[in-house]
């Protein structure tokens, strides 16, 4: 059963996301909303890592042998300035989207098993992930014109 593979994937993706939110927040501390909300949203991702615990125990956490094809997206470090902020937020967006669709996949499997607990966890966590995506999208939209047209 490949559910364990996907749980492992999700586990490491949420971990990367939590870490990336933390890094971006700390790096852009001059933008108080970014600092504060990255922290809040990073804590949510960290919370997801925890909620995955029982299911990793239940199904096992299988690390796929084909690491290149099934590895979570990775965050490669922060940048500075208006455009830098934009790119960092975009990276977070890519990572969070990956997490989102991975939850969708796990949710499908949870229905197939069926595993009501897992399904509930998927629903809760995916709601949070959508919140992360919606904030990122909003903030990116706000930052883009200024950063691309007139930032120094």
């Amino acid at each position, binding site marked *: 059963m490949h559910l364990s593979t996907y749980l492992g994937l999700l586990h490491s993706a949420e971990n990367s996301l939590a870490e990336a939110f933390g890094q971006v927040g700390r790096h852009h501390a001059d933008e*108080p*909303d970014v600092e504060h909300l990255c922290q809040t949203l990073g804590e949510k991702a960290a919370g997801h890592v925890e909620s995955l615990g029982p299911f990793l125990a239940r199904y096992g956490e299988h690390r796929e042998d084909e690491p290149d094809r099934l590895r979570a997206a990775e965050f490669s470090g922060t940048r500075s300035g208006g455009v830098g902020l934009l790119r960092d937020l975009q990276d977070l967006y890519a990572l969070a989207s990956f997490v989102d669709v991975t939850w969708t996949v796990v949710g499908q499997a949870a229905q197939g098993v069926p595993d009501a607990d897992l399904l509930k966890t998927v629903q809760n966590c995916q709601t949070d992930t959508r919140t992360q*995506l*919606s*904030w990122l999208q909003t903030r990116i939209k*706000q930052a883009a014109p200024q950063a691309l*047209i007139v*930032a120094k």
Partner: protein
Amino acid sequence: MDSADRVENVWGARTPHERGTAWPVRVDQELAVAEAEVDRWVQSACVLCSNGCACDIAVKDGRMVGVRGRAVDRINHGRLGPKGLYASWQWSDQDRLTQPLIRTAEGLRPASWDEAMDRIVEESKKRHPLQHGFYTSGQLFLEEYYTLGVIGKAGLGTPHMDGNTRLCTATAGASLKETFGSDGQPGSYEDIESCDALFLFGHNLAATQTVLWARVLDRVEGPDTPAIVVVDPRDTPTARMAERTGGVHLAPLPGTNLALMNGLIHELIEHGHVDEEYVARHTIGYDELVAAVAAYEPKQVAEICGVNAVDVQRAAEIFGTSERVLSTVLQGFYQSHQATAAACQVNNLHLLRGLIGKPGCGVLQMNGQPTAENTRECGADGDLPGFRNWANQHHIDELSTLWNVDPLKIPHWAPPTHAMQLWRYVEQGSIDFLWISATNPAVSLPELPRIRDILDRDGLFLVVQDGFLTETAEHADVVLPAALWGEKQGTFTNASRTVHLSDQAVDPPGEARSDLDIFLDYARRMDFRDKDGQPLIGWSTPEEAFEAWKECSRGRPCDYSGLTYDALRGGSGIPWPCTDDNPEGTDRLYPDSVFPTDSYVCEDFGHDLLTGGSTTPEQYKATEPAGRAFLKAATFQQPPEWISSGYPLIATTGRSPYHFHTRTKTGRSRKLRQAEPSVWVELSAADAADLGIAEGDRVRVESERGWMEGPARIGRVRPGVVFVPFHFGYWDSTDRGRTAANEFTLTEWDPVSKQPLYKVAAVRVRPSG
């Protein structure tokens, strides 16, 4: 006590009356000359808080010499408070700016209007629209905001425009949009006459709108006193009235309002005080709300907020069992942590019981400043005029037709730039043309050391338009002298949607001009044109601007189309919406509980209350609101700044009944200056004892960002909390001491309303010798 002296007796003599009867008239007047010597009386309304008390200005020999409350007016029934009586005109011939000023190497020097405006236009034309920022006010007139809004949105095409209303009223607007789909005050002041319970959420009404408090006191002193519940960490005259009326004073720790509100909602649900039929018919989101508040048991709330569980239960019981409940909300919520989420819970309490749109039942999401409502309506706070939705192409098309400009000209690609972000862009240099009108950010914005650095930034071209050489104007490249109240004509709308006309009583001093004339001059010199090559702005007088605005507002929730200057003259102010079919205006919104949430109508598609992430149009439409209100919920989060061993106290800021804003006017009133001459620092008796501080000792309040000093006043805040009034800047300081509360406040804001957090700064306090 001389009850005519309104410094001594702030709220004046009582005129008690029964529930459901009209508030009696009492006319207040202040004259510098004998009444017989007055040449004429000119109609206006007071601009020293959001109440908008109607008054007439006494004129003698071309000078303002007095004021008298207007007995016919629905807002004040003749009354005026200390600010209205003693500071509405007394400043008019002191320290006024009478000529434009231009910066040279030696400092500011007088210049002609041509020279000053040419300089501004030259700098403006050099720059991309996105390099322009406009930071305006809650104290101009409707006609001025609308004109400025059109200049920004259809002339230049910049989204960087906001008012200081971001600091005072943004959360009122945001919470109304989130719950009801659009801005617009649901309630009416007349609800005071018929309510059975009055809830004041973070609203020290006795100090902030003194005449409205007098209206409450007249119910308290009459038979069938309403129960008053006050949420405020300070023990104020407002809070003491709670105990007297059998209500409750809840003093939560600053930053914990949302936990308290979730607790009240939890109790309402737990004890079956929910009108289930109403909720099912008129709201969306009940199940999510129930889930979100499930954990907020009174005990839990008591722990988070530092209040008694029984008080939470009692307050919820009063809300749940009183027949008619009126709630008001102000800065204790708006300028605090999770502001929009907390303010939305007030709306939710009313929706859960179906207490809205009926006499005595209403929500008043208040404003701080007199014309803040117009900043919001006219789009001078960045929103689109007429409560239009920037994410709704249909609304953009309406504006592009009205203004006859390309829809792409109107900046609607992203949320409008809120003030805190606007200042950040100035700090980063991507906005380097900043035009400030009628506000004093060098005293009123948070974290002043940072603001001063920004104002002095190399490469920034700064225009300041004001009646006085304020602390902000001292940093300007060009200073424009503006006419003030009584010296120009226009309309404005108070916190309960009531529109007043303020006629011109006297000439402005020297060469000062109205803000409207200044904006129009800029538009002319910039040669803003519409699609057909005609001048973009076709009006040149206040009344013509008002007529243009009426067209813009037609069919929108804030419909002014039935109003005229003539209709506003002679009688009472009139509350919008006011149309040809409804010339008397509208007391209360939503009598039928049909809310402007339809996706074609709504001003906003809403946000996630925790993060401010926008709801997409598709997500919004999928909820099929169709006139139902949203019960939005959120869980409590720790404030972004909290006490530590280095900074063990929480500081909060607020107002005095005797002063307004940064005291440009009230500080020039002899009486009010005497009443409250300088800043003070309020500490609880327990904290003062710990720190070895006695009444009157000079103390320093210090955060990670900055510090201020003042004499200690002991015993009126809850332990752990320090209170400092924010009025006291530096224009009249003789010793150069640091007196502004905003020296220590922090640069953080609510994720939805973007209102800064003035009420939660971690500080330490020590004697400063």
